[in-house]
């Protein structure tokens, strides 16, 4: 195939971006570019509709509570049904941190208020309460046949969610390539990714493993 194209929908890039989330997009862009894959990134902001078949990949990052409230309302009203349809149809989805929470059925905040989510995953998130210790730190999980640095989450079809915030993909190049492969397979029926020089990626991955 000549110059394959993948279309990535970045949900709420300016609102859901608090924890270095854009590193995930930067990572996918570079790893596609080096393979001659044209990754076209489209921002999907408040009020904009979503066509279920318009994207091969969809990404949503994390945000503060205030932004999450605004986004939750828009997500359920303007985009939720299309997002569920896209995922049922095999589109690749990655939700990180608050984006993962909002991809679930609902999120109950510190004050007990509930935010409805997109319902991509059959799960919900509860805030442990304002007085609870914040859950922070570096984390490592073993998943399928490789370790993921900073990963804890869920999978449904080709939709992945991680509660761990920030740039998940740069330090997990195998997982990043897995997402690209899944999107290529769905669109073109096949995917062969040329290997890249991942020395720095693996060094950062190993550093995180050592820090456990």
């Amino acid at each position, binding site marked *: 195939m000549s110059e394959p194209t993948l279309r990535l929908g970045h949900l709420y890039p300016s609102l859901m971006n608090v924890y270095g989330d854009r590193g995930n997009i930067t990572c996918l862009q570079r790893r596609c570019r080096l393979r001659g894959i044209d990754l076209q990134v489209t921002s999907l902001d408040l009020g904009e509709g979503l066509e279920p078949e318009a994207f091969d990949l969809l990404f949503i990052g994390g945000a503060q509570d205030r932004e999450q409230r605004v986004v939750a309302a828009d997500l359920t009203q303007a985009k939720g049904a299309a997002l569920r349809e896209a995922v049922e149809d095999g589109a690749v989805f990655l939700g990180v941190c608050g984006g993962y929470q909002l991809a679930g059925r609902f999120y109950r905040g510190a004050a007990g208020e509930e935010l409805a989510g997109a319902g991509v995953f059959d799960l919900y998130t509860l805030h442990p309460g304002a007085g609870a210790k*914040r859950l922070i730190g570096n984390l490592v999980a073993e998943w399928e046949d490789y370790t993921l640095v900073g990963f804890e989450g869920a999978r449904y079809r080709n939709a992945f969610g991680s509660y761990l915030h920030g740039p998940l993909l740069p330090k997990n190049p195998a997982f990043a390539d897995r997402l690209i492969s899944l999107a290529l397979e769905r669109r073109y029926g096949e995917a062969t990714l040329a290997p890249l020089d991942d020395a720095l990626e693996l060094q950062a991955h190993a550093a995180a493993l050592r820090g456990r």
Partner: protein
Amino acid sequence: MARARTLASVWAAKTAALASRRLRRGGGTAISGLVGLGLNPGLVHDLARGLGQGCVLVTGTNGKTTTTRLLSEMARAAGLSPLVNASGSNLMRGLASTLALAAGHDGALDDGERRLGVFEVDEATLPLALAELRPRAAVFTNLFRDQLDRYGEVDAVAARWRQALARAPADPSSGSGQGPSTSSGQRLALVLNADDPAVAALGEGRDNVTYFGVDDKKLDRGHLEHASDSLSCVCGARLEYDAVYFGHVGRWRCPACGRARPKPQVSASKVNLKDGRSLRFVLASPAGRANVEMGLGGLYNVYNALAATAAASALGLPQAPVTDALAAAAAAFGRQEAFEVDGRRVELFLAKNPAGLNQVLQTLLLDPGRKTALLALNDGIADGRDVSWVWDADFEVAAGRFEAVVVSGTRAADLALRLKYADWDETTIEVEPDIGEALEAALAATPAGACLSAVPTYTAMLTLRELLARRAGRAPFWQQ
């Protein structure tokens, strides 16, 4: 009884600092403050009453240390005797230590009549510091994402500030009931960055506010940087900008409710950033206009100069010593300090969050002669354990600009990866986690007579600065 307890805690704090220095454990400010506060939790409040001119607090994400330093120099030039906490000693224990070490064994501050406290205060410590110190003025520089694991999100910090200001006594001398009243009858003066929407909002519904800001259309970046945090108005609508200077700082307005950037009483126009080592601008303040030349670089130092000038204006300092102090400004600890090492000039730029790092990068780019760099990322408690913030900084703007880059620190590999994905040439990047080794490598890569730009996070800066000071033959910071 209370006085005996204060004297005992002053004595204990002094002894702890002395012991710490004898043991070469550094300046001993943290330990002496902890010891003093352990004996007398009200130590800061008690000793601060000896500040004849009262005190000023400086807080915000970036610019605290330099603003504090500039303001203290202005006060000194105006004939006052400023008492300043050392950089990094900006928690209650640091304030306790600063006051205790300045107090005599009788508990009184020397030069008490002319004493003005100029204290930088950690964002999270501000509420307690306001209550204990009852300052004449509080300066808020800006508010950006910083150490999310430690402070929580930006909105949470702003909410804590608002609550603390709502509780702050209108009259700084009320409540103490005795002792030298610092400035009776005055309301707490707020000094606020008009260009930062979250900071400017603190002034709503209050009088005695001095706003500062930049008026210079040609500095408009034309777009919001990724590291922008206050994009929504208090009313919830999305803000619009007539000019963006950095991050979410600029000439903002809300299309929905009509809120807009307040008109600053203290402003800078005709800003000339030159080669990033000095700058020039026209300063306008209630006292008049003045041409300012400063030996500090970068737009962020224009804001630091404005914050300090606005604070001086709120305190009623005359204009001449203010501009004199700006003209004589020297770099604060680790912030644009320069060291001569082996015939190379090493310039140290502390950067600890995306907004600050973006400003440092913009400043470095002003001089195309900067060809080598040493970048160091640590994940100590004081740096923030979470280093994902490097992905929010715009390293892309400097892609291809450096011929040799040494990346160091406990999270060197993470930083190198970030640079790679920002399209910095991987073949120019050397990863050396040990900061001492990294400095040697970076010096070796820098031709004699050339300039090495060093950009460390906080704890990396402490290590690097000590190495540089030793190599350049300077005394450690607690002897300066």
